[in-house]
């Protein structure tokens, strides 16, 4: 009898045989609720087994290779626990796909105002672990502004809740903010409560193309300083040229008024292309290295021009987050040099030449992060191999 087999029997004995299986001498667990997640983690922690936490796997590799003898599949924890539509809040299990969540919320014309990558497959928990966000962030903020409560399970099986079901709440530490972007290294998120927004009654995308990044950047800065009802804005860059996409969300009469105002900014007429905000996701379809670069809005045109010059492709949200596909490591270094020259911002490799990403260092704050990690997961069993903050 191999060690893994006896572990399988042990774990099955603890959590029930119907949620454990074995594949290539790895233990695969498919818990259905928070308590089962806790039971799996307690077992792994007691036996010093690494646990790989998996949602839909859409962003696997973003933080490098994950080791671990146990896989914790989260898709069994799916569904909406509660949609208090009149309170504009909803609580969901972390394995719910983003699209399924939005479908349910849309029955009351509501949404979680965030547009992550691969929404059709990505899970709520995975989006939280990677702190993904799209162009809507300009108006509605990031997950930090949208998540108001959470249930988490620590490595030792402790089940803890923070926040609550009301938006305004300053009781206790916001543990849930600590989980956003933690790549599952501090605890496993099992339930999440979001604040919701109404789906805008009418929206329209205005796009403007230019041969030079500066022309798009100028309009972008002008829109940021305007009274326009913009909910999303991005600058697309490639060797073929540049485009600025502005999504107006307002009442019908105002949309056309603002459309005309945007036209007056460029002395021309904008167009309204289809699915233009899917451009970010399409960057991942091709070969090459994919990076996330953060910057001030005023630097967006400079970075965009550089990516295009290197014959790469980029989509940059007006909030200052660029996703770029470039050829190789030297192009990444070039972007790092540019970020260093800007004195603010960072470059994260989401998908390297070897298919794996690398998380950047958090500088002087890393010492606190390591200490928090130690206090939350003393044996380092959660997503081993991933070092958040360096």
């Amino acid at each position, binding site marked *: 009898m191999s060690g893994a087999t006896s572990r399988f029997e042990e774990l099955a004995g603890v959590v029930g045989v119907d949620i454990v299986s074995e594949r290539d001498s790895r233990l695969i667990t498919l818990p259905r609720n928070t308590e089962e997640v806790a039971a799996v983690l307690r077992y792994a922690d007691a036996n010093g087994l690494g646990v790989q936490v998996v949602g839909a796997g859409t962003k696997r590799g973003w933080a490098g290779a994950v080791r671990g003898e146990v896989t914790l599949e989260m898709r069994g924890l799916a569904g909406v626990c509660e949609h208090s539509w009149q309170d504009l809040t909803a609580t969901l299990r972390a394995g719910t796909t983003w699209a399924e969540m939005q479908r349910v919320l849309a029955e009351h014309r509501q949404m979680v105002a965030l547009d992550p990558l691969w929404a059709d497959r990505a899970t709520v928990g995975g989006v939280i672990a990677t702190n993904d966000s799209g162009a809507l962030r300009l108006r509605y*903020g990031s997950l930090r502004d949208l998540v108001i409560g959470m249930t988490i399970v620590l490595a030792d099986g402790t089940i803890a809740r923070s926040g609550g079901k009301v938006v305004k709440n300053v009781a206790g530490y916001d543990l849930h903010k600590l989980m956003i972007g933690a790549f599952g290294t501090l605890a496993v998120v099992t339930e999440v409560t979001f604040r919701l927004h109404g789906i805008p009654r009418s929206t329209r995308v205005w796009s403007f193309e230019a041969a030079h990044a500066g022309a798009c950047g100028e309009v972008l800065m002008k829109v940021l300083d305007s009274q326009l009802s913009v909910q999303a804005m991005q600058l697309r860059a490639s060797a073929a040229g540049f485009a600025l996409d502005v999504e107006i969300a307002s009442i019908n009469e105002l949309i056309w008024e603002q459309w005309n105002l945007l036209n007056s900014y460029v002395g021309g007429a904008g167009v309204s292309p289809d699915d233009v905000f899917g451009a970010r996701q399409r960057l991942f379809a091709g070969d090459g290295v994919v990076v996330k670069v953060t910057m001030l809005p005023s630097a967006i045109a400079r970075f965009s021009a550089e990516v295009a010059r290197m014959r790469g492709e980029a989509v940059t949200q007006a909030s*200052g987050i660029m996703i770029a596909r470039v050829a190789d490591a030297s192009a990444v270094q070039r972007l790092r040099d540019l970020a260093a020259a800007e004195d603010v911002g960072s470059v994260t490799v989401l998908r390297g030449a070897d298919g794996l990403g690398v998380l950047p260092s958090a500088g002087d704050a890393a010492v606190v992060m390591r200490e928090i990690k130690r206090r939350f997961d003393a044996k380092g069993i959660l997503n081993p191999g991933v070092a958040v903050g360096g």
Partner: protein
Amino acid sequence: MLSDSILSELRAAVPGGLITAASELQTYECDGLTNFRTMPGAVALPRSAEQVQSVVRICARHGIPFVGRGSGTGLSGGALPAEDSVVISFPRMNRILSLDIPNQRVVVEPGVINLHVTDAVAPYGYFYAPDPSSQSVCTIGGNVAENSGGAHCLKYGFTTTHVLGMEVVLPGGELVHFGAAVPDAPGYDLAGVFVGSEGTLGVATRLTLRIVKRPETVQVLLAAFDSIRAAGQTVSDIIAEGMLPAALEIMDRLSAKAAEAAVHANYPVCEALLLVELDGPAAEVAAQIAKTTALCGKNGAWEVRRAQTAEERALVWKGRKAAFAAVGRISPNYIVQDGVIPRTALPDVLEEITRMADAVNLRIANVFHAGDGNLHPLVLYDKAVPGQEEIALDLSYRILHVCVDRGGSITGEHGVGREKQEAMGYMFAEPDLATMQRVRVAFDPRNICNPDKVFPRTKLCGEKTGPYTPHPLEEKGVAEFF
């Protein structure tokens, strides 16, 4: 008493900036929650992050507790010193260091007054959104500690949404940086955890803030209703329509009457006064005003009035912001409570609160941020009547239990501090609090950074936590409000 040698170390750390005379220390013995008072051992007035580091290092070396303090307007005792502790106060670190209008960023020192940020960026058409009622005197450092809100956080969010990055002196004296001027700083979101940690994780010495474009139009509607239920229903209807007003406030008869007497805001006399502020592009606001007016009518408002001028709007708000203090005109003493409930529970909870007050023959004036379910019941009583204060305190804390039982919170914006330590045990289970403690000790293993706050005291003493029990009456009094 701090020893002479420690005092001389501190003196050297903040040249010309150490207060030790008992008469001067008295200023720092409490914050806005004046019924808790403790004399600190010394007050340091640093001029730089380096000086803050020096002071904190001395404290760390000797195991002396310290607490950061802004203007002392907090309402939960967050800045209450520990005995013989060092208060670090920031009147000498009050510079706005840089304005980057195109990128909508401002860098400030922690002692900058909230309103001064808006004053600095107003010429460019911007404002700093969090607006606690004390905004003309409270500091950004204090706002960050408490994650301050304000009437307009319904639409614009709390301090946490508007603080992008910070330089922090850790409880061990190290200088570190959380967050950044750009989104998604590498690593765990320590900026998100630090904001609202009530001064227990370190002392901020520099903050990068986000500013917001001033809306094209601002309009304020006042609507008079015969019942809180009708006003509350209107609030739900407005939100259900998909509108997100800048503010949605309700005052009941008692508080509106008090505010009227104080500032002559020209409020209609009614059971429930609803105040709606809408802002944005003019055409959008006009459409929303029409919709809101119709919803008020549908729910039985017998008067809907639009403030016609900027002066009228300012007066309406002045009355609202003065409501707490104005209640002093109709009652010798009062307690302000700060609880949160899901918005839809508003009418039921208010009726329950009224029943609870009737049962003990006390009056409650209600002022609340109705849009986000944040209640501020003001429990009126007379200290001169033997036993009444005790009854009032008990009532005030039972109201918090009602909030928690309804799925709400024990505090929406005033914080836990010293005041609500025990109520934390009612809202959170032992493992929740223990997990938060893991965060605290990661920052402050010596337990010297604003100790004995936020977490239930019984737990710190190793006793079992349980349902909340009121503080001993003799320690309690009435908070002052700004």
